[in-house]
């Protein structure tokens, strides 16, 4: 998705997320499976592919929330996603870890203004799946 030409007035933060969706998804999925190799035993290559696709969706859902500076658009998605993944035996802590890794990735990649805009939304999403 994510063709900037049909999404006018998009913020710089939204633009870099759209541009780098695949790279971000790949970086986060690789890190997750490298730090927790047991996930390969649990989910296999198919699980890796699914995770990669879900990370693309996560970034895609981040874009409108960042672009409209509306974290609630993202938190509603994370609530929905967590319910959906738990129904498929993916525990909340793995969803949380993906978001934390995405946060780190954003932090190392972008300029201060973009990092602030993106991670304000990501933090709200992380809070949804954080253990109470």
């Amino acid at each position, binding site marked *: *998705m*994510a063709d900037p030409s049909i*999404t*006018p007035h998009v913020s710089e933060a939204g633009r870099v997320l759209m541009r780098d969706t695949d790279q971000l998804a790949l970086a986060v999925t690789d890190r997750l499976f490298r730090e927790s190799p047991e996930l390969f035993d649990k989910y296999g290559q198919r699980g890796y592919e699914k995770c990669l696709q879900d990370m693309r969706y996560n970034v895609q859902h981040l874009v*409108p929330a960042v672009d409209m500076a509306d974290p609630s658009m993202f938190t509603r*998605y994370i609530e929905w996603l967590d319910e*959906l993944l738990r129904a498929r035996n993916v525990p909340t802590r793995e969803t949380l870890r993906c978001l934390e890794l995405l946060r780190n990735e954003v932090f190392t990649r972008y300029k201060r203004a973009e990092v602030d805009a993106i991670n304000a939304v990501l933090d709200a999403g992380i809070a949804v799946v954080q253990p109470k």
Partner: protein
Amino acid sequence: MTPRDEFLDALKRGDRQSAFRVVDARLASGSPLRDIYLDIVQPSMRDIGQLWQDNALTIAQEHVATAIAEASMSRVFERTFVWRDNRTPKILAACAEDERHQIGLRMLCDLLELDGWDTVYVGASVPVESLVGLVEKSNPDAIALSATIAPHVPRVRAAITAIRAANLKRQPVIAVGGRAFLSDPSLARRVGADATATDAAEAVSLLDALVRHGRAA
């Protein structure tokens, strides 16, 4: 089982005949299209969506259910349809680009059509340029746009921006709907729409007030 439970059950099993039997029985007992759409089809499709989310239905089963629901609607519409001259006002209904959840807009168009409106049902995933071209050509009084997921909201906004910038004889009333707009009523305004509704029935009365009677949203 209530007719709604029977209909949902038929959708879950992918049983088109049983679904048709439910709607035929409702028609035979005098239920209007509006009640069949709003009390049977709409809640059943919301349940189907939830069942997919709960991992109780696969995507393939959900698609079968959707196809049967749409076929059932066609059946009811066909049997309720009356020829009418001078249909007015005109509405054009389309999903955002990449958005494929079209059944709500179809429901809206069928309800408005029976109410005397002239409806142009565009349906799923329409590129902005192509949508604007059709708006310029058909010159509608109202436009309904739909998005289910948040990533499609900027596309709705892009469509509205492009429609407002187009060279039109009159500016149409623009309404938005779909799950992406349900939980936050302020979002509709922020994408530039005039109005939003939570389901097809509310959209009908809202559009009637705004377009036919020129009342403010």
